[in-house]
């Protein structure tokens, strides 16, 4: 077994090197230590004495989406406060999402939070949950179907309304030719956002599809587009991570366009502050998660509902340079 020994030796050497270099060069700026220094102590206990209820959230998120991470953070914070056990699952395929809701019904949860990105696939199972006596709150997408399917309330942003807010803002900023960058072809919400921009924007709007799972490709596609059409004076991205890339592409193509974006993260907050990005439209995902869980608690405890049969809007909130300083810390900790 000579090669097995060789393997062990290689592994040993690897570990030694890893530990060795770890102890060697340290950075005196940035990194975890800086974050820890900045971190305040956070109290994290429940504030109520209701029984331990269980709430399940089932979303249409793909794996590793930073937006849904923020939604979860809000939901967990509310769950901790309300003495609730919080369960989360997700699938970007309608059929699988419906199956996940079914498993939550089987677990006899006390409340259910779902998204209706693919309403038809979800209809039967949502009605089934209500039949089983489980209150349902819809969040994010599905404001049109929420009431019809018998949900208590819908909490989220109307994508068309958000797009329209962007269109208005761009008109106010005197822009003439907008490029709307879609990073997921076939996503209904994305189409609605760009359509919303088109509704209210007084100049021309144009869509560009890019491959969202391949950042260098996003950059070069934008570079190509901005170089091909010099009349584009504003670029709107539909997700925070794409805004920084758009700004880079703009620089490299030598374009004068302004970069604006939907959604927020730490990078965008910093970019707003230094003026690389004009404005961001936040739909406050933290609020969507937090309010949904809190509302289920309120319903169980006090039979309260919110919205009076109409969607409760968490956005659009337009944030600019003036808000950036305050938002930066919140975005960094992943709650904005």
């Amino acid at each position, binding site marked *: 077994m000579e090669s097995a020994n060789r*393997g062990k030796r*290689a592994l040993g050497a*690897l570990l030694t*090197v*890893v530990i060795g*270099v*770890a102890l*060697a*060069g*340290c*950075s*005196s*700026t*940035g*990194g*975890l*230590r*800086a*974050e820890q220094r900045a971190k305040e102590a956070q109290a994290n206990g429940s504030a109520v004495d209701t029984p331990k209820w269980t709430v399940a959230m089932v979303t249409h998120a*793909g*794996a*590793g*989406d*930073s937006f849904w*991470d923020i939604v979860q953070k809000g939901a967990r914070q509310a769950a901790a406060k309300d003495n609730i056990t919080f369960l989360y699952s997700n699938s970007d395929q309608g059929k699988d999402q419906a199956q996940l809701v079914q498993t939550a019904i089987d677990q006899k949860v006390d409340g259910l939070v779902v998204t209706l990105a693919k309403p038809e696939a979800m209809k039967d199972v949502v009605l089934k949950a209500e039949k089983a006596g489980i209150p349902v709150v819809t969040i994010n997408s599905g404001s049109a179907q929420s009431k019809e399917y018998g949900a208590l309330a819908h909490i989220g942003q109307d994508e068309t309304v958000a797009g329209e807010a962007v269109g208005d803002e761009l008109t106010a900023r005197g822009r003439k030719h907008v490029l709307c960058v879609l990073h997921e*072809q076939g996503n209904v919400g994305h189409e609605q956002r760009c359509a919303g921009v088109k509704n209210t924007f007084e100049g021309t709007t144009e*869509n*560009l*599809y890019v491959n969202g*799972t*391949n*950042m*260098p*490709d996003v*950059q*070069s*596609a934008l*570079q*190509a*587009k901005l*170089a*091909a*059409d010099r009349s584009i004076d504003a670029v709107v991205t539909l997700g925070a*991570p794409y805004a*920084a*890339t758009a700004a*880079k592409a703009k620089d*490299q*193509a*030598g374009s004068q366009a302004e970069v604006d974006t939907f959604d927020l*993260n*730490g*990078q965008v907050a*910093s970019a707003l502050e230094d003026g690389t990005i004009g404005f961001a439209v936040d739909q406050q995902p933290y609020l969507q998660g937090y309010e949904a869980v809190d509302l289920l608690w309120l319903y169980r405890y006090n039979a309260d509902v919110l919205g009076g049969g109409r969607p409760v809007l968490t956005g659009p909130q337009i944030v600019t340079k003036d808000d950036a300083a305050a938002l930066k810390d919140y975005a960094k900790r*992943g709650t904005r």
Partner: protein
Amino acid sequence: MTADSLAPPRRLGHRLLSRPELGAVVGAVAVFVVFSVAADSFLRPASLGTILYAASTIGIMAVPVALLMIGGEFDLSAGVLVTSSALVSSMFSYQMTANVWVGVGVSLLVTLAIGFFNGIMLARTKLPSFIITLGTFLMLTGLNLGFTKLIDGTVSTKSISDMEGFASARALFASHLTIGDVDLQVTILWWIALVAVATWVLLRTRAGNWIFASGGGPDAARAVGVPVTRTKTGLYMAVAFCAWISGQHLLFSFDVVQSGEGIGNEFLYIIAAVIGGCLMTGGYGSAIGSAVGAFIFGMTSKGIVYAEWNPDWFKFFLGAMLLLATLLNAWVRKRAEAAK
């Protein structure tokens, strides 16, 4: 190609026709002509920089993937391995508050170890590489997400742009230089260097013969003393090494890495290699071909944007162009073989 030196000298035309990348070159010219006619801005010098950048990010990975394919194997984990590599350097530097070069070094070791794992698993289990690397692909996809969430608390890494060593690392992996009107990314230099090294290895070294032999007929190769296992493990580590370069580019170019990225890119690398003349069955192909394949891909994906064709049809155009290029490639090769 090695057989060529033993064969009696033939006319230049015939020798050219027997090159694996010839079909791809013809395809590239065709794609170039189509977009030169269809898009005004396609021929601008600045556009060349953009196209070359798009081609280089695919091309850097297409080189080792082509070698691996010549050696008779696949690597489906190559796309996510790039992301893994970027995640490791970013998170290691951040969590240890270390100089980013430390993270870059650790990432190289980890990435090479994953390539080694692929190679060793292939040799030990005798399972098809499709299954082994599919397993690695799924495991890495999960690890990328799981570890990032566990360590960073969110699904993307923290920004390391304010840390020591970032500027010098960015200069090596993600800088760009301007020559006249043309803005050239450093990945283009990496790409050219990798193609040159791989071509030299394939055509001028014993290891190159081993690669052709391992892919052409592993049993026959083994019988004449070719270290097939070692060759294939080496090829997987070459894929890992290039994944490391691409991963560092991703990290230092975009500062923050998203853990879900990279899925699906493995197919782009394989597509580039196949367009470039590599046979799916192994034993035939070239590194230069993979570069031409990547260039076709870069021209097509960006040419559609330059031509300002209706974006609703983007994926259709892309697929049709790729299919046409490959068909043309196959036709030219058949003609070449008939002319021999």
